[in-house]
C-alpha cells in the first residue's frame, strides 16, 4: 500500500507538471523529484536467503489454532491440493483459503502483487519459469531446515533441488511437480509395421534416438494407413505461439545447441549474448519446419490439450509432451492404453559447439532433455504474515506420501520428480502393469538424471524473452521468414530486453541459475 501511495502521489505530480509546463523534461523531472514524498522504509520481511530464522513449530496438534493460511495457484488443478490442505488444517487448527487464479493470469498477478508489496498469499503454487523473478528478485523467504527435512529434501532429484527449488545456492521452494518433455510412441503400431518400415526405408523400425530418425518414422506413418482412426499421422508436437511453442521448440533445439562441455544454452554465460540465432538453433528450427507436415492438419495451432488429445485419441504415432501422457493414456477416453512407449526426447546427430564454433558429434545423437516449464512448486513470500504455518503447509504438501498419491491421481498436475513418485511399486499399486510402470519411470529418470539436461529459463523478464522467441518460431514455421532471419530478429530483441533489464544483473542471475560462481 505504501508503494501504491508513492506511485499515485508521484503520478499526480507528474500530471500536474505535464499539464502546466507542456514538457520541459529536465525541469519537470527535477520538480517531480522535489514534489515526490520522502522514500518510505521497505516493509519488514523475513531475511531472504537465510534459512533457519523461522522457528520450527513442531508437530503438535492445534499448533496453528486461529491462523488463516492463504494459498494461491492455477485455477483448475488445485482440487487435490485443497483436499490435502484441509487435512493439514484439521491437524494443525489452522484454516486454509485457496485462491484460484486463471492459468494465463497467474504469473502476471503474482509478479504485480509482489512488486507492489501487495499481499497475495502465504503459499504460492507457481511454475519454475518465474523462479528468477521470484527467488532471484528477493521476494521469497528461504526454506528453513525443518521444512526441508519434512519434504524429504534428499529424496528430491538433484536437478529439481538445485534448479527448481533453489536459487543462488539457497533453498526457497517446497516440491510439488516435476516436469520434463519426453518422447512417446505407439508401441503397437511400431510392432505391427516394423517389416513394412524396413522394406520402405531399409532401416529397422525402433523408437527414435535422433531427430532424423524421428522424422523418417513420422514420414512413414503419415504416408501409410496405420491408425484404427479415420486418419493417422506421424507425429504431434507443440508449436503454437502463446501456447507452449517455447517448450516445443526448446525440446528440439536442446539436442542441436546444448553442448555437453558447456553449461550455457540460452545465452553465453560469459557475455549474456543470446545463442538462439547460432547455427544449432537455426538448424533445429529448419528441421522442425520440414516435419510439421507430418502432424495433424492445423498443428501449428496446437497447444497442450490438442497435442495430448491427438495422441491419446490415436491420431499420432509419435508425440513430444510432458509426463502427463502416461496417466492420460489410462483415462477412459484414451484409445492407447497399454500401447504407448516411453523415452527421453530424441537427440541431434550433430550439435553446435559454441566454444569451438563448429559442429561436433559424439558416440551417438546428442541428447539434452529439456525441463520445459520445470514443474509447479510452492513458494512462501517473505512478506507472509504466517511464515511458520506457510512452510509447515508447503512442506506437508511436498512430503513423499502426499506427492506419491498426487502423482498417480489424475488431474493433480503433479508429474514425478522425487524418489517417492518414481518408485515403480507406486505405479504398480495404482494399477499399471509392472513393465509399463518401469518403462515410464525409467524414461522420466533417464531424462531428469541426464548430465546434459537443460532446465528451463529462470530469468527476470522470461515472459518477454519467451514471447520474442515464440514469435520468431511461429513466423519461420508459417513461412513468413527464414529460420535465420526470424532467430536473428529474436536475438536482437533478446539483447534489447537484456540491456533494458540490466545486462550485468541478468548475467549474474543467469550464472546463478546455472550454478556458476564468480
Amino acid at each position: 500500500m505504501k508503494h501504491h501511495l508513492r506511485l499515485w502521489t508521484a503520478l499526480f505530480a507528474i500530471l500536474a507538471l505535464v499539464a502546466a509546463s507542456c514538457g520541459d523534461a529536465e525541469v519537470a523531472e527535477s520538480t517531480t523529484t522535489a514534489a515526490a514524498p520522502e522514500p518510505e522504509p521497505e516493509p519488514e520481511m523475513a531475511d531472504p536467503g537465510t534459512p533457519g530464522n523461522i522457528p520450527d513449530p513442531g508437530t503438535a496438534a492445534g499448533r496453528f489454532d486461529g491462523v488463516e493460511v492463504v494459498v494461491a495457484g492455477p485455477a483448475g488443478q488445485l482440487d487435490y491440493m485443497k483436499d490435502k490442505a484441509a487435512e493439514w488444517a484439521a491437524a494443525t487448527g489452522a484454516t486454509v483459503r485457496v485462491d484460484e487464479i486463471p492459468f494465463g493470469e497467474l504469473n502476471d498477478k503474482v509478479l504485480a502483487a509482489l512488486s507492489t508489496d501487495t499481499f497475495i498469499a502465504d503459499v504460492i503454487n507457481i511454475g519454475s519459469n518465474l523462479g528468477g523473478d521470484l527467488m532471484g528478485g528477493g521476494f521469497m523467504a528461504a526454506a528453513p531446515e525443518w521444512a526441508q527435512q519434512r519434504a524429504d529434501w534428499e529424496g528430491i532429484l538433484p536437478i529439481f533441488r538445485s534448479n527448481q527449488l533453489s536459487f543462488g545456492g539457497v533453498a526457497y521452494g517446497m516440491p510439488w511437480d516435476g516436469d520434463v518433455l519426453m518422447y512417446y510412441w505407439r508401441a503397437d503400431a511400431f510392432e505391427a509395421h516394423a517389416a513394412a518400415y524396413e522394406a520402405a526405408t531399409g532401416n529397422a523400425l525402433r523408437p527414435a534416438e535422433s531427430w532424423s530418425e524421428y522424422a523418417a518414422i513420422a514420414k512413414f506413418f503419415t504416408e501409410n494407413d496405420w491408425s484404427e482412426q479415420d486418419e493417422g499421422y506421424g507425429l504431434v508436437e507443440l508449436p503454437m505461439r502463446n501456447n507452449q511453442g517455447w517448450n516445443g521448440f526448446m525440446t528440439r533445439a536442446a539436442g542441436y545447441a546444448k553442448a555437453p562441455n558447456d553449461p550455457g544454452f540460452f545465452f553465453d554465460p560469459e557475455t549474456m549474448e543470446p545463442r538462439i540465432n547460432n547455427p544449432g538453433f537455426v538448424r533445429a528450427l529448419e528441421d522442425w519446419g520440414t516435419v510439421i507436415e507430418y502432424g495433424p492438419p492445423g498443428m501449428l495451432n496446437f497447444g497442450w490439450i490438442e497435442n495430448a488429445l491427438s495422441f491419446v485419441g490415436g491420431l499420432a504415432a509419435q508425440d513430444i509432451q510432458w509426463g502427463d501422457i502416461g496417466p492420460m493414456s489410462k483415462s477412459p477416453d484414451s484409445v492407447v492404453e497399454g500401447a504407448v512407449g516411453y523415452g527421453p526426447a530424441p537427440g541431434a546427430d550433430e550439435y553446435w559447439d559454441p566454444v569451438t564454433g563448429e559442429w561436433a558429434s559424439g558416440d551417438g545423437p546428442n541428447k539434452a532433455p529439456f525441463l520445459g516449464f520445470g514443474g509447479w512448486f510452492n513458494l512462501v513470500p517473505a512478506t507472509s504474515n504466517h511464515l511458520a504455518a506457510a512452510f509447515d503447509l508447503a512442506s506437508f504438501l511436498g512430503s513423499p506420501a502426499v506427492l506419491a498419491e498426487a502423482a498417480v491421481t489424475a488431474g493433480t498436475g503433479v508429474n514425478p520428480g522425487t524418489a517417492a513418485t518414481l518408485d515403480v511399486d507406486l505405479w504398480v499399486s495404482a494399477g499399471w502393469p509392472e513393465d509399463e510402470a518401469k518403462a515410464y519411470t525409467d524414461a522420466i529418470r533417464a531424462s531428469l538424471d541426464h548430465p546434459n539436461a537443460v532446465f528451463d529459463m529462470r530469468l527476470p523478464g522470461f515472459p518477454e524473452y519467451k514471447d520474442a522467441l515464440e514469435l520468431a518460431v511461429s513466423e519461420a514455421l508459417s513461412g513468413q521468414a527464414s529460420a535465420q532471419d526470424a532467430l536473428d530478429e529474436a536475438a536482437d530483441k533478446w539483447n534489447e530486453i537484456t540491456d533494458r533489464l540490466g545486462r550485468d544483473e541478468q548475467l549474474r542471475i543467469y550464472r546463478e541459475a546455472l550454478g556458476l560462481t564468480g
Partner: protein
Amino acid sequence: MLALSIFPLVFSLGLTFTNVNLFRRVPLRFVGLENWARIFSDEALLETLVNTAIFVGGGVAIQYTLGLALAVALNQGLRGQRLMRVLFLLPMMVSPIAVGFIIGRMVFSEGFGPINDMLGALGLPAVAWVTSPAVAKWTIILVDTWQWTPLMMLLILVGLQGIPGEPMQAARVDGASEWQIFRHIVFPLLLPVSITAILIRALEAFKIIDIIRVVTGGGPGRATESVTAYVYNVGAKQGDLAYAASAAYVLLFVVIGVSFLALYVMRRVQARYE
C-alpha cells in the same frame, strides 16, 4: 463522470510519462516522451495496427452487408420471422471466448472441423484456416462476423421499422421497382441508423482481443495480433505498463480519427441524398 471516465484516462496518460513496470521494483521515474518516441520505431505496433484495420474494415463491412440483408428479409412480414429473429440473435448472447472455441477452434479446425470436412466431401482442398497468415486474418473476421452480424441486423431492423410507408407506396404507384425503392428511398432513410450501427460496431471491433487469444493466440507469427492484444501482452504479460499505456493511446487516437472521418464521409453521403 469525472471519476468514472476522465480520471482513468488522465491517470493512464500520466503513466505514459513514467517508467512504471509491474514486475520490477524500480524507483518511479519521469521519463518524458521516451515511451512516445519508442512508438515510432516499434514495428510490431505498426503491424498490429494494420491487422486491426483489416479486422475493422473487413469485418464491419461484411457485418453491415449481411446485417442489412437479414434485416430487409426479416422486415418482409414472412411466416416464422419472430422465431428467426430470436435465432439470429443467439450468437450475440454467447461470450466471445466461447465463440472463439466453438467456431474458431472447433468449426474451423483444420483437421477435425466440419468445414474442411464439407470441402473435402465436395472434392475441394482443405483450407489452412488458422495456420496460414493470410487466411487466419479472415478466419478471425469470420468468427467476429458470426457473433456480431446480429447486432447490425437488430439495429437496422429497428431503423427499417421506423421508416414511414407512404413514400414507398407513392413510389410503387409511380411504377418504381422494388430495387429502385430500396436504392432511392429505404437506403437513404436508413443512413442515420446505418452510420450509428457501423460506428458502434467499428468502435467495438477496434478493441478485438478475446476471439484472437482463443483462436490463434495472435499467430501465426504476428499475423492476427491486434493492437489490443499487443497492448495486453506488453502491459500484462511483460509488465511494461508505461509503454502499454502509450500504445493504447495510439489506438485511442486512431479510433477518434477514424470516427471523425467516418462521420464526415457519412454526412457527405447523406447530404447527397437529401
